[in-house]
């Protein structure tokens, strides 16, 4: 009888079109594939680079504006595309959100699969054990069942999961590897959620406090305050403190001269309005923790006390003026505005803790400690522009529409009579100021826990090896029992031989016979 086959006369038909659902499914399969995960990882790395090269609004808004002004073609374009706030930009968010969707889409099915594998018994032994990468074979005088029983018990005692069948024993170990892997990826998702939660509900504020002055934790007393969309400024913890003393020490030796060595702020703290006052100390690396908020010491400077008497003889200003440091030696600039003086006076000042003047640089400070303080003042009279409706910085003086009265340098205790009979300025003395950052981030503990669990899962997924081992024993048709042991590594493992040898030794312990013939079955 002959069978005829029809040779195809036309090329095979094209597969049917996918359709909408099919296409969506294809997209999903692609998104959750390892290859796309790799591509997204690289995109994430590349997307993070501009944020480290260009100035960012979050950390240094002044430099951002300078950069945009200095690059009239690229500056505004990059700004529109979000390059000056990269980590909040939509395209950056798109990359990591896609990556997380990919992770979730991969982790959920794998968890289900792993759950089933955890409940299943190890698979049956293959027929041809000599094809396995590690293979041992020997002959034993004991019956097959005895050998298999011993193999079963020995593997059990070494914490393998074992199953038994007709003439074979099968063992598997290392399920924690996949558990660790899934735990790691799930923790990354938890980390993202924690970071997002902190960003939504957290807040952060900065305030400059002069020695002798205080701060109460309400919105109006902050110099700058920002929070997430769901942060509630009415729910700030109600503590208050007074800055009693700020101590700072600078290096006077040759190496790194002028570098700071000690920062300490001594506070008197009221944890709640009814509580009694208590002393507190805040240092760099040692913040003060109150009621979910943390108070960090971030900066410091000098506040020369200037007493301004106007043309009518009234004292219109008599306290410290905060001067902001411009360099490492604390050359500082500040502005005093007296709108209630007659006439209105504005004074720009340059404060030098250790004053020196040279021809090239002009007045500058040579050491950050107040060894020889001097303040260089430039006085202006006229309209300060405070009624124009446009907000002004308290550290900058807009001299348009003002006339300059003169320039003078003052040492502590000296007085300057302003030209034109417009009053006097006295440099009374020197105080310091410290700047504090007060922050609340409800997501930081969950983020820490998530990252620690991620690290543990990562180590499990890299260091635990997943292995299978099989033992076959048959005594049918021969006077001796032929015993075979083979092993297979299910993960990247170079050295399976010791593991298999250990199993062999466990089985052969207590029985005698010719040594096993070892080899590698792979051609």
């Amino acid at each position, binding site marked *: 009888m002959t069978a005829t086959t029809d040779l195809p006369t036309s090329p095979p038909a094209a597969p049917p079109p996918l359709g909408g659902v099919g296409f969506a499914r294809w997209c999903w399969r692609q998104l959750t594939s*390892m*290859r796309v*995960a*790799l591509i997204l*990882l*690289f995109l*994430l*790395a590349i997307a*993070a*680079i501009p*944020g*480290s*090269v260009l100035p*960012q609004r*979050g*950390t240094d808004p002044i430099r951002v504006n300078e950069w945009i002004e200095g690059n009239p073609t690229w500056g505004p374009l990059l700004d529109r595309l979000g390059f000056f706030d*990269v*980590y909040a930009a939509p395209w950056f968010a798109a990359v990591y959100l896609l990556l997380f969707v990919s992770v979730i889409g991969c982790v959920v099915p794998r968890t289900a699969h792993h759950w089933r594998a955890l409940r299943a018994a190890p698979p049956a032994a293959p027929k041809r054990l000599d094809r396995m990468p590690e293979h041992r074979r020997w002959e034993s005088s004991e019956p097959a069942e005895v050998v298999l029983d011993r193999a079963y018990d020995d593997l059990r005692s070494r914490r393998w999961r074992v199953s038994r069948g007709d003439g074979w024993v099968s063992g598997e170990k290392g399920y924690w590897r996949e558990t660790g892997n899934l735990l790691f990826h799930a923790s990354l998702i938890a980390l993202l959620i924690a*970071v997002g939660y902190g960003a939504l509900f957290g807040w*952060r504020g900065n305030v400059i406090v002069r020695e002798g002055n205080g701060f109460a934790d309400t919105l109006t007393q902050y110099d700058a305050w920002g929070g997430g969309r769901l942060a509630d400024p009415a729910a700030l913890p109600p503590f208050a403190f007074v800055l009693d003393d700020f101590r700072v020490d600078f*290096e006077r*030796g*040759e*190496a*790194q001269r002028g*570098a*700071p*060595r*000690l*920062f300490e702020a001594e506070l008197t703290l009221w944890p709640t309005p009814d509580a009694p006052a208590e002393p507190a100390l805040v*240092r*760099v*690396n*040692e*913040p003060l923790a109150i009621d979910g908020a*943390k108070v*960090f010491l*971030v900066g410091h400077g000098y506040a020369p006390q200037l007493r301004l008497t106007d043309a009518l003889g009234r004292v219109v200003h008599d306290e410290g003026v905060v001067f902001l440091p411009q360099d490492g030696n604390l050359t500082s600039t500040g502005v005093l505005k007296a709108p209630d003086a007659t006439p209105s006076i504005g004074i720009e000042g340059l404060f030098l803790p250790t004053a020196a003047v040279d021809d090239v640089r002009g007045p500058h400070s040579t050491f950050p400690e107040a060894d020889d303080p001097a303040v260089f003042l430039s006085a202006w009279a006229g309209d300060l522009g405070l009624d124009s409706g446009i907000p002004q910085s308290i550290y900058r003086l807009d001299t348009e529409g003002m006339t300059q009265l003169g320039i003078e340098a003052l040492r502590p205790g000296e007085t300057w009579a302003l030209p034109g009979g417009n009053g006097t300025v006295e440099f009374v003395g020197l105080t310091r100021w410290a700047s504090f*950052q007060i*922050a609340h*981030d409800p997501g*930081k503990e969950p*983020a*820490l826990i998530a*990252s*620690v669990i*991620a*690290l543990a899962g*990562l*180590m499990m997924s*890299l*260091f635990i090896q997943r292995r299978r081992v099989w033992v076959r024993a048959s005594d049918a048709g021969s006077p001796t029992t032929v015993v075979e042991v083979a092993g297979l590594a299910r993960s*990247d493992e*170079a050295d399976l031989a010791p593991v298999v040898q250990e199993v062999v030794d466990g089985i052969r312990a207590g029985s005698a016979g010719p040594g096993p013939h070892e080899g590698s079955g792979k051609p």
Partner: protein
Amino acid sequence: MTSASLAEWSNLAVYSSMLVLIAALISFAVSFAARGQRVMSPERVPVGAGAPVSAQSPDNPPQSAVPGRRAGNVAMALTWLATGMLLLGLVLRGLWAGRVPWGNMYEFSLAWTLGILAVFLVVSMRRDIRWLGLPVVFLALLSLGLAVTVLYTEAAQLVPALKSWWLVIHVASAIICGGAFTVAAAISSLYLWRDRAERRGKVTGIVATLPDATRLDTLAYRILAFAFPLWTFAVISGAIWAENAWGRYWGWDPKETWAFITWVIYAGYLHARSTAGWRGRRAAYISLLGFVSFLINYFGVNIFVNSLHSYAGL
């Protein structure tokens, strides 16, 4: 011992370590050249101390007669000696400054070199990796040379933000990772070279003294599998410290950003090894890319970018 002489002894130890490393470099080169000369024709089995013993072939001579083996032994011994002297130099530097010896770029570079040599020597205790000696010692000399010429600075106290015992943990783990990344990058480069020779079928000369490509790939993987969790830990401990010192645990500071980029790239490496079509050459390229990112993280940010992390001391 007065502090001035501590400083002198520290510098002396570092310079001596460099001299010994040069001698080790020469010995490794001699060992390479001697073994490379034996292999005149394409070989199926790599000859040399790195090959597995089980590959028996009639013309494989007994191990003691392999030329270059004595030079290789001498080179390894010299490397041990140089590492010990570098460790001594670092310890003396720490004693001189009265603190942990990694507070500025000079000390970071010394510690990083120590990390490279330490990773190399630890792996050499489990496996014979003489073939790796030449590139590793060369890289160690390069970084030491950079340290003592361009980056040298007197030991001074730390700025207040660094006075925390997190300095020990965070920076130490980052430095050990740096050493591991460097060694893995050297192995990946050798892998690419060997893999190209194998695919062309012409395994001759120096390339034949290297182990086969699979083993190179596996060794690089194992080193990176050790380094990646440690790098993750370095980033986490850095975040914990940042929260204490700067008020937030992650602020996308350039150093933080580049540490993150390095982490992502090495995560990509680990993924690539489990992805069909990405094992082998592409994974090796990713490993090299990760190393470049680490160098930017270490040198680039400290020197070129103004960030909260600029403790270069330059």
